[in-house]
């Protein structure tokens, strides 16, 4: 009796398990299917036409607020928002060329003064949000005010200054004594937006600046309604109903940490060019699960890891492209401390410790190059690992990394450089910075950047100078990243082998947010971290090589993971803020980028390892007529339903 009961119980459990595993989750699919059914049309032959819905694996969407967009990988803005201008692809005779196309703007910007400091942009008369609310020059200017809000401190406000310095915008954004009325963005009659810059610029630069996420319009009234009482945060974009959309698609449904269901926006200015009826942006954390969904035909496009790529790299479905991110070792060498808004000095300021100075004081270097001496803020003597500042030690690290092997493991490009392969010499240029003679001049062969004998010699010298027999260092990595884990373990073994056990790396794994907080604490704690692994890139910039160094300068101080300091980088980045010719004259831009890279590499401000690649699997029924190496825009794709 008992056996029979157990048997029955087992059978019931098995049936329950099978039922749970089989079939689709109705909650997951019903919305899409409903949307599909609603959009399905009947062809003239009477055969129902399949709706064209693409299903793409995407990064997890945190917010719809365009001014809080972290990187283009947060795909939502690409799909659902329009800007004044957008990088587009022109296909002629089978080749594709990128060009800047007016999107919400009616035409290219018009110069209205002799110097090139005042520009007018006419907003399209038919520019509107998906709910029909018109987008006008007034509402656009109000959006810009939100973008530059000094209390909200949006990331996009910072990025907007990359190409042109809008008059007083930076001062307003950084909380200076400037009112919004003094900022060079004005709405004029005739649906015109007038932009005044600090220095002369070109139409190309104005268009490039207004193709950033900062130029996505928001609904000012809705934004105001979502603001917190103290005005330092907003809930705009935290819910489907708390956002307006003006791009190719609108959000129909958002399941947090899971997926976004998008439908075509009929009010989009180029709606007739969008061939898809809808899209599903699905967040699947596990790479293996993504591949399984791809194999099962549940996803049309998936991003994959290097390990999966190894299995599929000969498949026609496999695509790989450089991905702008460099993985690098960051060193807390205490070479620079940045302070901002110090009471007696103008911002931004650079604070450097001068070890040779008998008084061991900090030297504040101002924008114009003058120096002010003041008492030190952080005591160099409190450092527990002074070897981190030793140049021979940095050289030892540089030569101890087998970048070729590491890059092969992760399907990346071995890097003894800082500017990634995704950096082009101008918006329309097919020339990569890395391929220019200027950029090749000072780079050693990648094979020569791995030299265990040289590394050992440098290391022994560093130990001697520091009076040490051996050294133990912690390397901080993100526990969320398998790539970092693999990389750190590889480095640990390699360093132990090359330095014959005299350098012991201790791997400190922690969640990404904790890692960043720990590393960024270097401003107040000289021993906040020792070594760290980080992906670093000026994510929004690809058309101005010198902008890649912005992140290593004091102008980016709030976000720096490590106390990078290179005098050449510092000076050049400050110079370009007031000298627009660095941006208009590409030769000058390339030369400046090369000079900064050469100096930064020779000073080993970081130890680059490899440039990451974006690897994807794309089903054959996803068709696109371009091969933009920077950004495969799946929202412009088509679906050949006959192949599905």
């Amino acid at each position, binding site marked *: 009796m008992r056996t029979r009961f157990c048997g029955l119980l087992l059978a019931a459990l098995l049936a329950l398990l099978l039922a749970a595993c089989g079939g689709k989750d109705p909650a997951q699919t019903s919305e899409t299917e409903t949307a599909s059914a609603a959009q399905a049309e009947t062809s003239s032959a009477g055969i129902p036409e399949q709706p064209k819905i693409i299903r793409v694996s995407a990064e997890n969407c945190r917010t719809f607020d365009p001014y809080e967009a972290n990187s283009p990988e947060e795909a939502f803005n690409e799909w659902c928002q329009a800007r004044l201008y957008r990088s587009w692809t022109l296909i002629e005779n089978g080749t594709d060329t990128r060009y800047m196309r007016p999107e919400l703007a009616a035409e290219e910007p018009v110069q209205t003064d002799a110097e090139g400091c005042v520009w007018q942009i006419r907003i399209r008369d038919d520019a509107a949000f998906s709910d029909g609310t018109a987008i006008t020059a007034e509402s656009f200017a109000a959006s810009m005010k939100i973008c530059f809000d000094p209390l909200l401190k949006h990331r996009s406000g910072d990025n907007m200054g990359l190409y042109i310095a809008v008059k007083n915008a930076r001062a307003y954004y950084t909380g200076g004594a400037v009112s919004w009325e003094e900022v060079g963005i004005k709405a004029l009659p005739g649906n015109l937006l007038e932009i005044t810059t600090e220095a002369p610029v070109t139409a190309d630069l104005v268009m490039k600046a207004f193709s950033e996420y900062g130029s996505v319009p928001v609904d000012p009234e809705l934004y105001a309604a979502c603001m917190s009482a103290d005005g330092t945060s907003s809930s705009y974009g935290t819910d489907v109903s708390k956002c307006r959309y003006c791009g190719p698609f609108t959000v129909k449904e958002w399941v947090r940490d899971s997926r976004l269901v998008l439908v075509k926006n009929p009010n989009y200015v180029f709606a007739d060019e969008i061939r898809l009826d809808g899209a599903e942006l699905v967040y699947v954390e596990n790479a293996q699960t993504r591949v399984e969904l791809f194999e099962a035909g549940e996803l049309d496009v998936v991003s994959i890891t290097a*390990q999966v790529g190894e299995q599929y790299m*000969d*498949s*026609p*479905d496999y695509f790989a492209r450089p991905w702008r991110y460099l993985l690098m070792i960051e060193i807390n060498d205490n070479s620079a401390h940045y302070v901002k808004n110090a009471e007696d000095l103008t911002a931004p300021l650079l604070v450097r410790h001068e070890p040779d100075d008998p008084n061991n004081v900090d030297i504040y270097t101002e924008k114009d190059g003058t120096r002010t001496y003041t008492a030190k803020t952080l005591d160099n003597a409190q450092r527990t690992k002074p070897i981190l500042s030793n140049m021979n030690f940095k050289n030892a690290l540089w030569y101890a990394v087998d970048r070729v092997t590491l890059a092969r*493991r992760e399907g990346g490009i071995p890097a003894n450089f800082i500017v990634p392969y995704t950096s082009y010499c101008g918006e329309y240029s097919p020339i990569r910075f890395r391929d220019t003679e200027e950029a090749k001049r000072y780079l050693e062969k990648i094979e020569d950047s791995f030299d265990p004998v040289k590394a050992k010699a440098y290391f022994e010298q560093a130990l001697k100078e520091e009076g040490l027999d051996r050294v133990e260092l912690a390397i901080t990595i993100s526990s969320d990243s398998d790539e970092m884990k693999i990389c750190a*373990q*590889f480095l640990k073994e390699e360093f132990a082998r090359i330095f014959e056990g005299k350098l012991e790396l201790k*791997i400190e*794994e922690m969640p990404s947010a904790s890692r960043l907080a720990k590393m960024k604490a270097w401003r107040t704690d000289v021993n906040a971290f020792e070594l760290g692994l980080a992906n670093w890139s000026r994510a929004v910039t690809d058309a101005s090589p010198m902008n890649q160094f912005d992140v290593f300068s004091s102008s980016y101080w709030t976000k720096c993971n490590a106390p990078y300091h290179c005098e050449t980088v510092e000076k050049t980045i400050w110079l370009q803020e007031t000298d627009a010719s660095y941006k208009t004259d590409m030769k000058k831009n390339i030369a400046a980028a090369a000079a900064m890279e050469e100096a930064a590499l020779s000073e080993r401000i970081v130890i680059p390892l490899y440039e990451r690649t974006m690897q994807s699997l794309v089903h054959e029924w996803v068709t696109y007529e371009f091969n933009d190496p920077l950004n495969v825009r799946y929202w412009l794709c088509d679906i050949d339903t006959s192949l599905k």
Partner: protein
Amino acid sequence: MNAPLSPRQNVLRRLRKDRAAVIAFWILVFLLAMALFAPNFNEYTYRQQMLQEDYVNMPPRVQALKWIPLFNGRAVLKARPLSSLSDTAKYPEGCVIRTFNERTNRGITVVDAEVDYYLYKGADESVNFWFGTDTLGRDIWTRVWRGTRISLLIAFVSVLLDLLIGTAYGAVCGYYGGKRDLILMRIAEVVQAIPNVVLCTLMILLMGGGTGTMIVALACRGWTGTAGLVRAQFLRFKNREYVLAAKEMGASDARLMRRHILPNAAGPIITRTVMAVPSAVFAEAFLSYIGLGVPAPEPSLGNLLAEAQSVLGLYPTQTLFPALIISLLMIAFHLLANGLRDALDPNEY
């Protein structure tokens, strides 16, 4: 007439009659022996990476067992263009065993190809990874057995600490009783109420990751159960006649506890201790799996499972071996503990 059996002989005799317990015992002996010696059976170390040789994610191969599909060193490469398989620079002569699942993709005929992965990677017959290699090209055989050793070490030492602390604590509570018992047991209950993960996380934050931390973290809370059990046994035995007699004859409290009460409570304590070992193995595996365990590159069964699960679909053998060993450990310890419980049960005499 047979000579009377001592209690120990009696227990052993009864244990030997339990076939499941005997098999479990020999499985444990085998696993322990392998954990001690197997990492030295080949030339690879647990942290040696073979990235330069590109021996990454190699499937298992044992020359003598090549007739078993699991150990033949073959792997399936997905969606390879049929025409490219004749390229000997990429696919050395003889490495493609068979092709299947032929289809057309973007006008190209593609197939899935079963290949001799060792030949494909340019490794000769002398290169054999019995359990394959992981994502850093480390020998899984060496890592699995070393991981077993680490997991068992953590489990045994933490259980030993449980036993020592719990027994002493429970003995004091049970023997003396009164307010002392009341206060001490409430403290034990408070400690017991702290979730294991929280306690381990705190310990790791305090002491940093490592084998020692794991042992302390597991022992920190584990002793409370033993203390409860020992206390109950002491309450049960402390007023027995033989204890009172010894007390009347001037035996000290420590002697009474050690010589007269504890031996009688040994049965449940031994059973509980044996039962606690697989629990500790499992707790270690769980904590390592969620990233709170032994830091890399030191392996443990939990670490190995955590690393392997991200490539489970592609390289299932990386999960198979640690999972198999952890399962065997759990089953064997439980069966042995069941056998011991029956053998030590005085009601069964």
